[in-house]
């Protein structure tokens, strides 16, 4: 065991967990990483490309190596950083990207073959023989690639979304963030303080310095208590601000249940935070220094080593006597040695690359020295130290590497602001052009010392909330002393990006092959493209490339950062409702009636509509549909048509307005009458159609197709507000306010006369009449319109009475054989009559193609009229025609294409396509509608409906699209 004294873990309680199936114990406050360390586990994972043995390298979300699959089955979470997994009782984790076992990984051979796997090698080979790529090479590569595996089953956990609004969002709960929150919180601003860790404090929890001569954690807990007591401050723990979006909007992921065996409610909550101002106080991430074989388990970041010692009371030693060395180019590296010595841990030495390095504690110091090699197959056993050309190999189990700190400025450049190189900080600092309302404070802005961090947090918060900075504790203020060493030259591989196995050699190769721009370097070597997004690698790689090109780092430039800061589960982004609640469902007023009748339902946009109403004994849907169709043709049928859009249009200029909306005239429509109307898009193509009823002098009701209801309303509001705001017209949608039932068939008048309190005779209420009336003592609207071609009406009552009205009509019409019919029969009836619907009005058809060219009035201006007269639309000879197969039983399918009998079946000879098709029980034949080139001229001729996709063809006679009653006598009876 390598647990040592101290730390912020609760030793009074023990948690049990498994890694690779082996049982271990840890304590509350542990991460999986610290707990594994405490159990002497050094080998945790394998690298992506070479499958190199890897251990724990960092102590936070920047971890490149220690990736595990957490949990199992449907809950398996691949690629999870051991350093961010909060230990819970019963936790199970396994390593990834290895076979058969972590200790012995067959694909370790990749490491031996590494000379052939240099940067970009795969672009240069695997091309012969051609067929082998998909069949052999690629499958091998795909199998070897990837890291962890998904469970493959539906994610069983629930996710939540929410929206928060605040004056000030503080990103990071370390010294800087706490000072800022205290300042703004006391000033009464509404503050949200978010931190990705399980507890507030940031680096303060990981360092040994005192605040006001007391342990820093005491101060942290004091502040935390005060913030908790402020009603205007909201603390979000375990919450990562992962993205900065426009106008002060941030994406935040709260891990509500990830620290539990099973979430109590939701696993994670996605918060969209809208903040007037924000302070980025995300601290900094330590760099390493590439040197020969620098990737062995036991080699980790100096600051991380310090964190494990101070916060978790643990070291990566295998046994207490193991010696620990530090390799650094700056003073901060020495701190780790000082903390280790203070804990009585054997320190081999501090190897400092600087000639002028000073010893800051009781340990041996090698000045002007570097680490030039390491040994140890599955874990570090010794290191080579080179000083003045002399190399000695010393036994050493742990090596802390400190290459200076990179400010965590990611969110500051999510709007593509370019980080600025600072020689003084030997790091990139936040860009000038920050996201709207954002300020950067503390280590994220290059203020590294505790004192400087506290001060900048308090001061910036004070500026933003126009108040005094909170008084701050006394804190260390050590200056930043560093002489950057970007890599230790050598022949053996020195890793820069650990997870993707990018070495200094790969960068040199990219340079040699002229892949020098930063983006080429990144893409050629895959640098920074791993799950850690190169948090510990990118800047170092830039510096190496700069050295190779002889440019400065500033000249070499940098890549910018993109969301998310750390990877975010798609479950959280996709939010709670997938499944059947993915989108709203709209039900018709007679839905209960249809359910009771056992009707199957069909999706029409968001609506569910009854498809047909099967009767006992009917075994095939066609039986039901044919029966329903014939019932309408010979008797009377009922169909809920509520889904059609209804837009109420009022105002003294309503008629004039509608004249401009419809391509045909509407102002001339008489009160109490209905007219069919066609709307065009401004580009001249047909947009939508329906009936328009004039209920009063200044009151019209426009009906739209189900699919376009919302779009037409938007278009009409555009016309009203943006084009002709001086017209006196008011619009409002009433689609849901009225239940509308089509009553169709020769016996429809007879049926309606039994419930409607009005004279329905042809004289009193002729075809295309409308009226406000009463049915069963209830206010109602009656329209004499027909979609089926039969004598028909549509009757509308207040929505909530629709179901009862349907039942009543069934009751009083029993002797007439009244029959409810669904969308299938509706479709057959309208095809028989040759009415266009969405299949014809598909946005690609002109009024001419639909046979309505003459409807486009030239006597008035209306939307689309001018553009409908463009050459291409006028010259288009395609027309909607009817098609009857020579063999009535030959099934025609919508989507077949049309050809002259002798023509070759190819694009050039394509004459059109079938838009709609069905079996007509009335005509005892399959029938279809389609757009056909020279359609009018070809009436009576034969075309082939070709469906090569499904391998069938049928010769058809070209007929009028009005298969029944072309003169429309039935409608008018």
């Amino acid at each position, binding site marked *: 065991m390598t647990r040592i004294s101290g730390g912020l873990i609760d030793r009074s309680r023990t948690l049990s967990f498994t890694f690779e199936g082996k049982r271990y114990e840890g304590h509350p406050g542990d991460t999986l990483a610290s707990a594994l360390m405490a159990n002497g586990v050094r080998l945790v994972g394998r690298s992506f490309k070479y499958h190199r043995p890897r251990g724990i390298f960092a102590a936070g979300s920047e971890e490149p190596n220690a990736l595990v699959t957490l949990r199992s089955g449907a809950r398996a979470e691949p690629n999870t950083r051991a350093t961010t997994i909060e230990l819970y009782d019963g936790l199970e984790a396994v390593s990834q990207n290895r076979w058969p076992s972590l200790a012995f990984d067959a694909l370790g051979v990749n490491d031996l073959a590494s000379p052939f796997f240099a940067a970009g090698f795969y672009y240069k080979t695997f091309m012969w023989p051609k067929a082998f790529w998909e069949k052999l090479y690629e499958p091998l590569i795909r199998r070897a690639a990837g890291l962890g595996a998904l469970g493959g089953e539906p994610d069983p956990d629930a996710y939540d979304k929410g*929206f*928060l609004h605040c004056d000030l969002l503080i990103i990071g709960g370390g010294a800087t963030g706490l000072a800022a929150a205290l300042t703004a919180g006391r000033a009464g601003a509404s503050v949200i303080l978010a931190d990705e860790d399980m507890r507030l404090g940031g680096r303060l929890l990981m360092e040994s310095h005192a605040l006001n001569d007391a342990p820093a954690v005491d101060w942290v807990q004091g502040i935390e208590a005060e913030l908790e007591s402020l009603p205007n401050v909201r603390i979000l723990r375990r919450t990562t601000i992962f993205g900065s979006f426009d106008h002060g909007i941030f994406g935040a992921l709260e891990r509500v249940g990830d620290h539990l065996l099973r979430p109590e409610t939701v696993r994670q909550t996605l918060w969209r935070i809208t903040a007037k101002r924000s302070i980025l106080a995300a601290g900094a991430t330590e760099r390493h220094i590439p040197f020969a074989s620098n990737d062995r388990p036991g080699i980790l970041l100096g600051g991380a080593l310090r964190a494990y010692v101070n916060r978790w009371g643990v070291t990566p030693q295998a046994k207490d006597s193991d010696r620990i060395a530090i390799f650094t180019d700056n003073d901060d590296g020495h701190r780790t040695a000082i903390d280790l010595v203070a804990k009585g841990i054997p320190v081999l030495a501090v190897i400092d690359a600087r000639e002028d390095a000073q010893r800051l504690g009781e340990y041996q110091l090698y000045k002007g020295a570097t680490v030039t090699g390491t040994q140890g197959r599955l874990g570090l056993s010794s290191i080579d130290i080179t000083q003045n050309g002399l190399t000695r190999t010393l036994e050493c189990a742990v090596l802390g590497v400190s290459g200076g700190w990179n400010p965590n400025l990611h969110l500051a450049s999510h709007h593509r602001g370019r980080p600025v190189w600072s020689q003084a900080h030997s790091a990139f600092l936040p860009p000038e052009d920050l996201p709207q309302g954002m300020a950067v404070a503390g280590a994220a802005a290059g203020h590294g010392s505790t004192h400087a961090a506290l001060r900048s947090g308090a001061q910036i918060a004070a500026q933003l909330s126009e108040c005094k900075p909170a008084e701050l504790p006394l804190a260390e203020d050590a200056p930043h002393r560093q002489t950057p060493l970007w890599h230790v030259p050598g022949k053996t591989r020195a890793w820069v990006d650990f997870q993707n196995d990018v070495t200094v050699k790969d960068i040199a190769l990219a340079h040699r092959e002229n892949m020098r721009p930063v983006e080429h370097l990144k893409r050629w070597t895959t640098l920074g493209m791993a799950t850690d997004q190169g948090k510990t690698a990118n800047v170092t790689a830039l510096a190496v490339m700069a050295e190779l090109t002889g440019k400065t780092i500033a000249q070499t430039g940098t890549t910018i950062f993109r969301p998310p800061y750390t990877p975010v589960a798609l479950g959280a982004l996709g939010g709670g409702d997938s499944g059947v609640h993915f989108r709203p*469902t709209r039900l018709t007023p007679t839905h209960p009636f249809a359910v009771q009748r056992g009707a199957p339902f069909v999706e029409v946009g968001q609506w569910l509509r009854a498809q047909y109403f099967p009767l006992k004994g009917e075994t095939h849907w066609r039986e039901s549909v044919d029966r329903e169709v014939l019932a309408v043709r010979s008797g009377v049928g009922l169909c809920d048509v509520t889904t059609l859009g209804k837009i109420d249009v009022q105002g003294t200029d309503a008629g004039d307005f509608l004249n401009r909306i419809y391509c045909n005239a509407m102002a001339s429509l008489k009160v109490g009458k209905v007219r069919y109307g066609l709307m065009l898009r401004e580009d001249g193509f047909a947009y939508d159609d329906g009936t328009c009823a004039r209920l009063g002098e200044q009151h019209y009701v426009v009906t739209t197709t189900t699919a376009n209801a919302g779009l037409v309303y938007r278009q009409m509001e555009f016309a009203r507000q943006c084009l002709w705001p001086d017209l*006196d017209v008011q619009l409002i949608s*009433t689609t849901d306010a009225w239940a509308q039932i089509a009553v169709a068939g020769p016996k429809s008048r007879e049926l309606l006369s039994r419930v409607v309190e009005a004279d329905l005779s042809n004289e009193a209420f002729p075809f295309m009449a409308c009226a406000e009336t009463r049915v069963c003592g*209830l206010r109602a609207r009656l329209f004499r319109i027909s979609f089926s071609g039969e004598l028909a009406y549509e009757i509308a009552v207040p929505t909530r009475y629709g179901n009862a009205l349907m039942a009543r009509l069934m009751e009083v019409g029993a002797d007439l054989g009244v029959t409810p019919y669904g969308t299938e029969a509706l479709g057959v009836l309208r095809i028989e009559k040759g009415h266009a619907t969405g299949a014809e009005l598909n946005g690609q058809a002109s009024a001419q193609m639909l046979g309505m060219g003459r409807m486009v009035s030239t006597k008035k201006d209306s939307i689309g009229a001018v553009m409908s007269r463009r050459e291409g639309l006028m010259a288009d000879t395609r027309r909607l025609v009817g098609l009857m197969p020579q063999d009535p039983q030959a099934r025609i399918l919508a989507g077949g294409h049309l050809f002259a009998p002798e023509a070759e079946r190819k694009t050039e000879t394509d004459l059109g396509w079938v838009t709609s098709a069905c079996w007509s029980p009335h005509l005892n034949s399959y029938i279809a509608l389609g757009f056909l080139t020279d359609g009018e001229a070809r009436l009576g001729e034969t075309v082939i409906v070709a469906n090569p996709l499904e391998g069938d063809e049928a010769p058809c006679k070209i007929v009028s699209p009005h298969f029944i009653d072309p003169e429309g006598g039935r409608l008018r009876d």
Partner: protein
Amino acid sequence: MTDLTPLCALGAPEPRRTARGALSLTENPDLALASLALRAGGAQPAPFGLTLPGPGAFNASGEVLALWTGPGQWMLAAERSPDADFAAELRAQAPGCSITEQTGGWCCVEIASATGAAPLDRLLEKLVNLPPAALCPGRAARTGLHHLSVFVIRRSTDRLAVLGMSSAAGSLWHALDAAALRLESFA
């Protein structure tokens, strides 16, 4: 007087109701609705003696409530039996305005908290993307909620009404109830 029996928006003869911790959700079937729009240059009426409210607000007096829905447009709501012709009533109250019946168009869910504002505020932040100030007592807003367009009316600190289109009443109820359920299990 009709002899047809109406259904509630959620499809049953009786209104749906449920309790989730401190919160109770109740379908309100006795809300008659009609919209009012000013004609060009028309004066602003005071139907039922109500001063029509400005943007983002509502006014209530007795059983009638007026809600701003857009420039020169309001929705009026009153407690009425389902077959009442509220639009006709309003037309008489606001001559020269464009009045449109809306009663059947909407499903109204009343949400009440037994423990003050907090549970409603927690619920709202899970449902709608509006700053708390936009939904404090006396305020009302039309906004998006789970891909639905809704009116949210903050009747008082501990009472809230949410109106969504009646055809999607089931989806609205699901969204509200699921959110309330999750809050409950937190409490």
